[in-house]
């Protein structure tokens, strides 16, 4: 029982990390209708920038804070460049062209990040405690082993979702973003400048990518495979629906738990290593029951 709880808790934590990456996808898809395959590359790029800047600034009084501010500026600049060079010329093109364009962006970001910052594995240490904790010692004999790093990650993710929720509900820009997500033309007719909004959305997604990069990076180290995290976040998106922040969180948790449980309980029977595809198959099965994902908008085809 204790072991089962451990696996479930571990799965929940891993799911939180997936949700962080999926959150960036959802933000961009909601506001501009673009399926941003470059989100993984953005996570990697943000983490690389942060880690290398921290190295260069290690002699100053607070390398992490200064590097963080600089990285935020870099991600905002990146959002502006992407909007100007890629999104604006491709306005009104079919979704698949935009998807392919983001695939191209991910190649460019990968190459650029590694050309400028180098392709070694960098350890990211921002002060997240890494001690494993023993919880629930009174409920379960022996207690349940939980990594405090994962707990902090879950707290950060929860904080991020809360901040994003407040941003969307209470601020003027958040309202504008929701208007654009609803209907581009109507938003434009009310006077909301679409290009400006897209820069903001991509910048916010970049910041979410930065947070995800910090959390993943301190867990795994900042290396090229961080960019492949995007492929892990896709099942989260299908499960939760492409347009829902709540869906990204809930989907992430379900996928995380499902993955860990399947690996531990089903894995040994079929040779192991099923983590790679189990999430996808799980999401696929959910899709067959509910084709838009759990919280996605129902797609109504008008003929």
């Amino acid at each position, binding site marked *: 029982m204790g072991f089962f709880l451990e696996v479930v808790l571990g799965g929940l934590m891993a799911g939180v990390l997936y949700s962080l990456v999926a959150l960036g996808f959802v933000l961009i898809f909601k506001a501009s209708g673009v399926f941003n395959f470059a989100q993984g590359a953005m996570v990697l790029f943000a983490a690389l920038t942060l880690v290398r800047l921290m190295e260069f600034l290690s002699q100053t009084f607070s390398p992490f804070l200064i590097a963080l501010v600089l990285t935020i500026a870099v991600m905002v600049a990146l959002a502006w460049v992407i909007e100007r060079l890629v999104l604006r010329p491709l306005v009104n093109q079919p979704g698949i062209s935009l998807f392919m364009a983001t695939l191209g962006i991910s190649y460019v970001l990968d190459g*650029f990040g590694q050309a400028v910052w180098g392709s070694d594995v960098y350890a990211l240490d921002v002060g997240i405690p890494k001690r494993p904790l023993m919880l629930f010692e009174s409920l379960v004999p022996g207690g349940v082993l939980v990594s405090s790093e994962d707990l902090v990650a879950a707290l950060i993710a929860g904080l991020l979702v809360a901040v994003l929720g407040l941003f969307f509900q209470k601020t003027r820009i958040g309202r504008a973003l929701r208007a654009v997500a609803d209907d581009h033309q109507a938003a434009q007719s009310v006077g909301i400048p679409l290009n400006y909004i897209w820069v903001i959305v991509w910048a916010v997604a970049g910041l979410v990518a930065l947070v995800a990069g910090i959390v993943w990076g301190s867990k795994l180290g900042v290396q090229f495979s961080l960019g492949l995290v995007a*492929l892990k976040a896709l099942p989260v998106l299908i499960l939760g629906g492409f347009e829902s922040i709540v869906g990204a969180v809930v989907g992430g948790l379900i996928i995380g738990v499902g993955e860990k449980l399947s690996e531990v309980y089903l894995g040994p029977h079929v*040779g192991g290593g099923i983590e790679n595809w189990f999430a996808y198959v799980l999401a696929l099965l959910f899709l067959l029951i509910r084709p838009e994902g759990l919280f996605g908008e129902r797609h109504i085809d008008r003929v």
Partner: protein
Amino acid sequence: MFYREAGQFKTSYGADQAVFPILQDQIFIGLWLALGFVLVPLVSTEYLLKAILIPFLILALAALGLNLLVGYCGQLSLGTGGFMAVGAYAAYNLCVRIPWLNPVVAFLLAGGVATLVGIAFGIPSLRIKGYYLAVATLAAQFFLDWVFSRVAWFTNNTPSGSITAPPVTLFELTFDTPVKKYLLCLSILVLFAAVAKNLVRGRIGRAWMATRDMDVAAEIIGIRPMYAKLSAFAVSSFFIGVAGGLWAFVHLGSWEPLAFDVNRSFSILFMVIIGGLGSILGSFLGAAFITVLPLLLNQLPQWLGVSISTAMISHLEAMIFGCLIVFFLIVEPLGLARLWRIGKEKLRLWPFPY
């Protein structure tokens, strides 16, 4: 002036409905076939054949298959690498376990196996659309990746996971030299391209295109969505499976599951998009572009006389590749086939500007 159909009168329905009704087009295609079958084998170096032409031909076949699915039927699929793997491993297992079976027949049977797998993974398309379907086909890709690396039966229980294909023979003719391999791939490609062209001009192709444009409306006028979508998956997977068998046997020789990973799927999707969705010629043009581009990018620093480390070269390659993809999508979203069509229109009017 030269490209006019003036004076060419058709006297039968068959002549009118030909794939290439204009005489100039027929001459053009005839020249290309002569070039491909006669001239190229005579003058090419071994490097040109092995590194450029054979991969181009096999990937063009795979791109053709994917174009039928994505371009003509509108079902976005990212599982191409997995289906190629199915074709490759099916051909390998058939050749190894049934020793008297001819490898070329094994390719076709492997294509059949890939068809069945394609139909199985195409069933979600009856319920899911768009990006969701793309991610569902990614499930196929990762699952097939896992199956071929973990289930030892498929690799004939080799300890290393990497298997070597037996040599390809047909009627006592062994395809061992690059020229013979090139001619084999070219013949198969021309045959399959003819089949594809006729399919898309027929009833099935129209059903696919109707499903792509507006599947609800297509269903209303009587096109059964299950048959349209699953037949697209079936035919496409057949082409891709045969391409996978050829890739493994003729080009690679010996391979491991990584040869058919998700990067392969993406590169074939790039070929289809850059070449032009919904165009047979587009598959060829896109395959040529994507095959030649990395080689060009690799040689570029040498030609420019700049010396850069290999790591930096590969990063720059990735960056330039990405930039070119975005550039192409901005400049010509309908692909290279559209540029070709515009060229033909201009040629019709030449030397007049309009």
